[in-house]
């Protein structure tokens, strides 16, 4: 996995900060424990000195830990705010009329994702987005809670029935990114995957057109079947 949007870049950086912070604390505890067990494990004989503690050292250790926690907190807030910023569409991206992000309604349903683009085109399973373009996914659900997760492009987010949940991203590079729903949603949960194909704006528009034509053709076919009496 590698981050391919400004938001996930920030998340990746913060992940490493968190990893280092966690590693420092774990190594400190485990290291100190193993040291005292080795050093004093073989002591024999007289009763050791009955030390009951001291306020000074306690305040010092507590203060150090508090400062450590505060530092992680500040860094987390800085990077989280950056990760949430709505990116701006770049020069290579799709130039929409407003400076607003491209809004795509993303519907979770057992066990498939549906993507509704502006201009009435839609697709299942595969999301096509133009490169270098700010995209806003509006997550909704028609049945149970689903989590949309394509870790390279965007933070995970839940699609909860009755709520709309927005996430934004801007894919930096053309390519295919895979993802998988991340909240247990019933029997076929593990098969509820998705794919994001990042393409050039031209290809995106061509895709939308062909999708619209395909949908229109399918609808026309249904209408003609009904008119001809082949379908009741």
């Amino acid at each position, binding site marked *: 996995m590698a981050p391919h949007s400004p938001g996930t870049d920030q998340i990746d950086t913060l992940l490493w900060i968190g990893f280092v912070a966690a590693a420092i604390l774990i190594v400190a505890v485990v290291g100190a424990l193993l040291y005292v067990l080795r050093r*004093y494990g073989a002591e024999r004989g007289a009763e050791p000195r009955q030390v009951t503690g001291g306020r000074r050292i306690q305040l010092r250790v507590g203060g150090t830990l508090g400062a450590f926690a505060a530092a992680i907190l500040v860094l987390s807030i800085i990077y*989280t705010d950056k990760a949430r910023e709505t990116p701006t569409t770049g020069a290579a991206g799709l130039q929409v009329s407003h400076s607003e992000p491209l809004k795509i309604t993303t519907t979770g349903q057992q066990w498939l994702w549906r993507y509704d683009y502006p201009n009435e085109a839609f697709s299942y399973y595969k999301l096509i987005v133009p490169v270098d373009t700010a995209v806003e996914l509006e997550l909704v659900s028609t*049945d149970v809670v689903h989590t949309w997760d394509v870790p390279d492009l965007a933070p995970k987010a839940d699609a909860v029935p009755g709520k709309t949940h927005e996430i934004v991203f801007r894919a930096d590079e053309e390519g295919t990114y895979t993802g998988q729903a991340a909240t*247990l949603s019933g029997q076929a949960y593990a098969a509820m995957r998705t794919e994001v194909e990042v393409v050039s704006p031209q290809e995106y528009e061509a895709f939308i057109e062909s999708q619209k034509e395909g949908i229109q053709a399918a609808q026309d076919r249904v209408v003609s079947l009904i008119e001809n009496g082949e379908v009741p």
Partner: protein
Amino acid sequence: MSAPTKIPELVIDGFPPRRPRWVEIVTSADHKDLGRVLITGALGFLFIALVELLLMRLQLAIPENTFLTPVAFNRMLSLYGATAIFLFAVPLALGFFYYVAPLQIGARGTALPRLGQLGTWLFIAAATVLYTCFLFTPSEAGVNPLPPLSGIAFLPNNGVDAWAAASGLATLGFVLIAIDLVATLRRLRAPGMAWRRLPVFSWAAAIGSWLLLVIGPVMLAAITMLLIDRNFEGIFFAGDAGGSPLLWQHLSWIFYTGTYMLILIFALGALAEIVPALARKPLFNRGAVIGSLVAIAVLGTLAWMQNMFTAPIGLGWMYFAMIMSLALIVPFGLVFFNLIATLSGGTLRMRAPLLFAAGAVVAISIGLGSEIEHSMVAVGWRLQHTTDSTAATHFALIGGAVFGGFAALHWWFPKMTGRTMGETLARFSFWTMAIGLLVAFVPLFFAGGEEGEVVDAYKFFAGTGVNAYNLIATIGAFVLAAGILMTLLNAILSREGGRPAGHDAWGGDSLEWFALSPPEPHNFDLLPDVRSARPMRDIREAIAHRSARAEQTARESTPVA
């Protein structure tokens, strides 16, 4: 002189014959009998939870496996979660609290024994309800059954109802036991046993009980609403009818997060008894450790939204949860620091309880260290709902409930049975468990953190880069299970065949070691006047002082030939 013609007759028929052992246990309201029921039951369900975990790990050994059907996997997952939390971890912690705390404070029983009895048997009833659902169908809604999936529309069979009934009965039972413990700790302390002299494990019992009094009713309310939604057309969690699915998430996470803290408070409380005694030193900064346990209960529970970073809630609330979670670094850090400082400079007896205690510190610190990452909001967006969080939770809770629980088991087993658990088997068990834990869960950190493998899925796909991680994790889970089984076996064998331990098995400082092993039904014939936080040490010193003086007197009064 005339001898009395009639000697007053003294007839002794003996004590009334004891009823069969099982009748005694089933009708007993004695905290020791009930504590043993809770602990034995919990260890039995540890075994069952292990079987369920291994079945799931077998399914996840190779990609796209078909060993379990998706439905069977989801049922295993749901049973595993309920068993591990409601039937193993919490009853084990409460069982030890309930057995040990009254002894430690020098009480002859508990304040509301029938309440504790009811609570214990509600736990048994909960277990019965959860497992009789095999007769029809278990829940398929996962560890935390989120509506709407757990609603009647999506899971119309009665599995979720069985889950809700079982969890509700168990939670009610825990709350009743907690009420008894709170009352006992407040009212029945021995003369001189001020709060400042209370053993740390009894403090943990008090803190844990108060915590349960807060979070238990929250869960009971949530479960009641779920049952109303499912069976009586309620709309509490229906998003389109004025309710909210997120409401369940808030209520249930308050309970689960509090429970997580309860398990760690139990483990750290037990460690705070074991470590000083086996280092032959008093606990370093006792007051700070107790204060930290209180802080863990409060801050930890307030951090419930740490589990909801992917849900549509305001960013401010996420920051609130993050502040609470990161603040936990201070109390947890202080407890670890003080435990290690207690060991430092001591003369350590590396017996089984200390070994398991060390294992608990390592496992809990790995788990909580990873939780720091999950608490950092943006990182949470990436790591939550992946196997990275599975690994973090299992490190912390296996560290607390299994390693910490086994440390407590080895420690108080001599008190409960009069016999010590086999040391050799304990060592084998410990090292097998330690290796198993690392091999079973470290790969899941990588699978989740690096490759984003999602939680709770009944299969994973080849080509997603997680094949090796999952295979190793499955092997590790079997090693871990083998290690755990060794300790369960050790406990069964040692009950009758262990080395007799004597009444003061380890030289601990608290009053449970003043009682017989196993203690009489009334706990103590006479109660000492408590003068310090280390009453048993005072007693030992007084006895040594007196026998020395008696010896001296005897020597002085002996005429020199």
